[in-house]
């Protein structure tokens, strides 16, 4: 199964402030009553984008200046909470191609990588500078160079970011979905099952 290598992603950005943005916030549980992931995009961040009466709040995703953003910029521990893949799926379907944050919760991180949505970690100072640059010019193009592990903007911001080597490797070599490789080891798997008393 040949997959497209993900060497870099770019687009305009949007900054969603706050630490510990959890998966219930990214996709409230009631929208998970579905048997496919299709259609999840419109519900991303629903309860912070709309008030009780269905009116738009002043959430950054409602700001017309950031309507076309495809790079999400956030703070610490982004995606914490549930293992629901519905969270990265909803972001992906909303139109995001990459996330830059101070840190990520692990399950969210792994889920995103498997969906070819790179998540890179930047220092608090770099996030702050990037957020200010986006605020000053919403049309600014933000580029995540997955191969070189750098984030740059059309206005000259350029800083190093981090990502576990295995995730970088998986993305740049087009192995972000490991299913084929897992299946290839069938005989080893069968041996293991016997050895560990599982069959």
């Amino acid at each position: 199964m040949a997959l497209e290598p993900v060497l870099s992603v770019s687009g305009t950005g949007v900054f969603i402030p706050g630490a510990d943005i959890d998966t219930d916030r990214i996709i409230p549980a009631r929208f998970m009553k579905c048997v496919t992931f299709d259609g999840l995009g419109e519900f991303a961040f629903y309860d912070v984008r709309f008030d009780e009466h269905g009116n738009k709040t002043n959430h950054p995703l409602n700001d017309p200046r950031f309507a076309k953003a495809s790079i999400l910029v956030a703070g610490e521990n982004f995606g914490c909470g549930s293992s629901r893949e519905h969270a990265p799926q909803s972001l992906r379907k909303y139109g995001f191609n990459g996330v830059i944050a101070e840190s990520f919760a692990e399950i969210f991180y792994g889920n995103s990588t498997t969906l070819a949505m790179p998540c890179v970690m930047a220092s608090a100072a770099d996030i702050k500078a990037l957020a200010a640059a986006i605020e000053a010019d919403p049309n600014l193009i933000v580029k995540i160079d997955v191969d070189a592990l750098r984030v740059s903007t059309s206005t000259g911001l350029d800083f190093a970011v981090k990502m576990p080597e295995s995730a970088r490797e998986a993305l740049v070599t087009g192995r972000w979905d490991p299913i084929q490789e897992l299946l290839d080891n069938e005989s080893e798997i069968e041996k293991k099952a016997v050895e560990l008393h599982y069959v």
Partner: protein
Amino acid sequence: MGKSLFQKVWDTHAVGTLADGRTQLFIGTHLIHEVTSPQAFGMLRDLGLKVKFPQRTFATVDHIVPTENQDAPQDPLAAEMMRALRDNCDDFGVTYFDLKSGKQGIVHVVGPEQGITQPGTTIACGDSHTATHGAFGAIAFGIGTTQVRDVLASQTLALEALKVRRIEVNGDLRPGVYAKDVILHIIRLLGAKGGIGFAYEYAGDVFDRMSMEERMTVCNMSIEGGARCGYVNPDAKTVAYLQGRPYVDSKNFDTTAARWLSFASDPDAVFDDIVRINAADIEPTVTWGISPDQGISISENIPDPAKSQTPGEKASVEEALAYMKLPAGTPIKGVKIDVAFIGSCTNGRISDFREVAKYIRGHQVAAGVKAIVVPGSQIVAVQCEKEGLPQIFRDAGFEWRAAGCSMCLAMNPDKLIGDQLCASSSNRNFKGRQGSPTGRTVLMSPVMVAAAAINGSISDARELFELKAEAAVA
């Protein structure tokens, strides 16, 4: 040099190393439920794949089942999800503990109950509270739906090893301090992101003395501390709990038990980090904010953002207090509640209901408070009936419901309305978690929930139920 349980389980289950450097890890047991599995089965069908070892996957339905008229959901979407799980299990030959089986319940209650959860194994489930099973000395963790597909298709996952932090709690817990308080205290100390990259090993005489159910309560909330999994080393209690359960090999039990125990961390195991906590420092703990690490003891005041150490902390305290509509710097004790919920995979087991039932006789839920009690599984519910517990709860003014996740995440009809404040024995106090986008959750132990229900406000259960707190040590 000795090995930790984590290292032993990891090493024995490693099938190989993948091109990107990750380990291909064999998954001994796979648990599935209706919310995170249908898309995975869809992917299998799209790829034309089969389930590799159907006998190693077990299904149940928990998140969306109503707790009144369990098998007749009014919600067509819920009914569709139940149907999809039935069809997928039938098509792929997976065992399904459905509503008619008498064994249905929250997936993390069902696994141990059936003896499917065993020491020294790897367990994965499309649910972050899979860490619960670590109470048995298993390496158990939550996965996304694409990974559910991977396990179904190959019985393996591509993963990176975790570091191990040993958390030792020694000494005596004071009266009225429960397993729930221990884990809320740990999360408060280490933070909601403190465990990222770690497996937590819970050790020390406090965990040694805990029952298996209490250990489950602790391991359950590892993820709230950022740790993908948490475990307690298997011991004689673990073995005794499992003996005679349906999925435990009874013929070679002694050999099996010896193998289980051999996975416990060696005395000279090396850990990446060690944290030591004094049991006597732990008080009944409640949350005041919108992240599980925003907790305080019942006798403390709600934090004041003005006293924050950093601008980031100030902003998060302000955000939490604005959402929770709580006044800064005032006691948490006495805050009015609207709803009380006892249940969930954290505290929905027989011992939780027995413990609360001990104290609520002769008391009444305060006027205006809706109090609901939801057993974690049909087996727990039947056991409660045998012991006459539902009547005790009903007499005290609680509603007694059927098994499921219920108001823990409110994907069924049990939801908060508007900005109701709920004293809850569940595990997450995120914004909107209990079904209303403005609903408020305060996490605490089941006995503390009962005290709040009776007083109509957040209370110190030790005072109401005379749990004889010793004089505080100066």
